[in-house]
């Protein structure tokens, strides 16, 4: 194709998105669209998969059967979300193995929040309430994104995610209403997860390199700073309601803006964690790569069995 033809196709392509038409896997798309989507969608899938690790840590020590079944179901959902997203990404022409390879070698990123440790049971509450809360804010607009398979996966993810946040909030609420020791646990978890949750919504707008193009493709509908403000505004009253204190001395309602003002975020910490120097980066990758390697003989055995059965059936037919 000549450069001119490609340009024409691109103009038509952008017009389709402008008209809110969806792009489907076999449609023509600019190479950059494909690459950007592979990057964002696979990162999203990796985050779901790695995101199971901090919570998996507490399944066997959940304080009651009720909490245990809920946490198990939540972690299973995350596996499911990872799988929806991996298969949606595969429609763009990248294989599952390539994506795993990118995750395991550190070439692909996942959400930096999962590199923080889960030290107490209250962290299960804080993660559900704050981390899933921030994730929902990020994900709801994606249900309308331009790439069909991504939008469909996100609709399914969002339907399931609100249970995650509620189960987390309930844990926090119960602890906050409990003994002073339990309340301290809840407050401590909030103190540790608050700032990383704000960072999770991405770098400041002026440092976010992909925002403008992503907005055009509806891969992003609101800027990071807008999403962050929305998260703060909706979360602060929830903390008030259960008597916990947001660990930000500069947090203050701004009547004119109709929003909360908040203190500075430690972006150095964010970039350190993104670059691999967070408290648990190594541990997470070790667990993930270990699980993949140790599962290899199982995957091979299943394939060998399937092939043997297929030959048997074929022989029977003859």
């Amino acid at each position, binding site marked *: 194709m000549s450069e001119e033809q490609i340009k024409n196709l691109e103009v038509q392509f952008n017009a389709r998105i402008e008209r809110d038409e969806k792009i*489907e896997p*076999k*449609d*023509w798309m600019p190479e950059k669209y494909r690459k950007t989507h592979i990057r964002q969608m696979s990162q999203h899938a990796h985050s779901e998969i790695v995101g199971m690790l901090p919570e998996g840590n507490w399944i066997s020590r959940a304080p009651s059967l009720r909490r245990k079944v809920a946490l198990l*179901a939540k972690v*299973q*959902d995350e596996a*499911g979300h990872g*799988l*929806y997203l991996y*298969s*949606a990404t*595969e429609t763009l022409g990248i*294989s*599952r*193995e390539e994506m795993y390879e990118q995750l395991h070698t550190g070439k692909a990123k996942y959400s930096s929040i999962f590199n923080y440790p889960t030290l107490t049971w209250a962290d299960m509450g804080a993660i559900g309430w704050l981390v899933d809360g921030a994730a929902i804010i990020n994900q709801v607009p994606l249900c309308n994104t331009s790439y069909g398979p991504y939008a*469909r*996966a996100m609709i399914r993810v969002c339907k*399931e995610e609100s249970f995650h946040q509620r189960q987390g909030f309930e844990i926090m609420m119960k602890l906050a209403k409990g003994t002073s020791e339990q309340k301290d646990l809840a407050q401590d978890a909030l103190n540790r997860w608050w700032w990383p949750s704000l960072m999770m919504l991405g770098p400041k707008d002026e440092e976010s390199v992909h925002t403008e193009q992503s907005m055009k493709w509806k891969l992003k509908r609101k800027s990071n700073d807008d999403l962050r403000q929305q998260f703060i505004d909706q979360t602060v009253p929830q903390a008030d309601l259960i008597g916990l204190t947001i660990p930000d001395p500069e947090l203050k309602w701004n009547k004119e803006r109709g929003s909360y003002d908040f203190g500075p975020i430690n972006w150095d910490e964010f970039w350190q964690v993104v670059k691999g120097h967070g408290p648990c980066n190594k541990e997470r990758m070790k667990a993930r790569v270990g699980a993949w390697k140790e599962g*290899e003989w199982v*995957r*091979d055995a*299943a*394939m*060998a*069995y*399937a092939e043997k*059965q*297929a030959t048997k059936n074929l022989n029977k037919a003859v």
Partner: protein
Amino acid sequence: MKKNWPLWEVFVRSKNGLEHRHFGSLHAADAEMALENARDVYTRRNEGVSIWVVESKNIAASNPLNNGELFEPAQDKVYRHPTFYDLPDDIKHM
């Protein structure tokens, strides 16, 4: 790893009376495993009463580049729609 598990497309009937609809895809060694995985991945909350799986390589698909000759001719065949036909105003039940 000797050989990767193939890709399967998953179709789910959400309740009797409705058709099977494409839900997504997954990897599995064989059809039985694909059905079991589909149950866990796509129907954790009563989303279905029946599942079909088919290996993705067995699906033939039309190419969007041919959409013009495939689908556009239908647009000028207005006589296929009831509104094309003139009827007197006082005719009933037609």
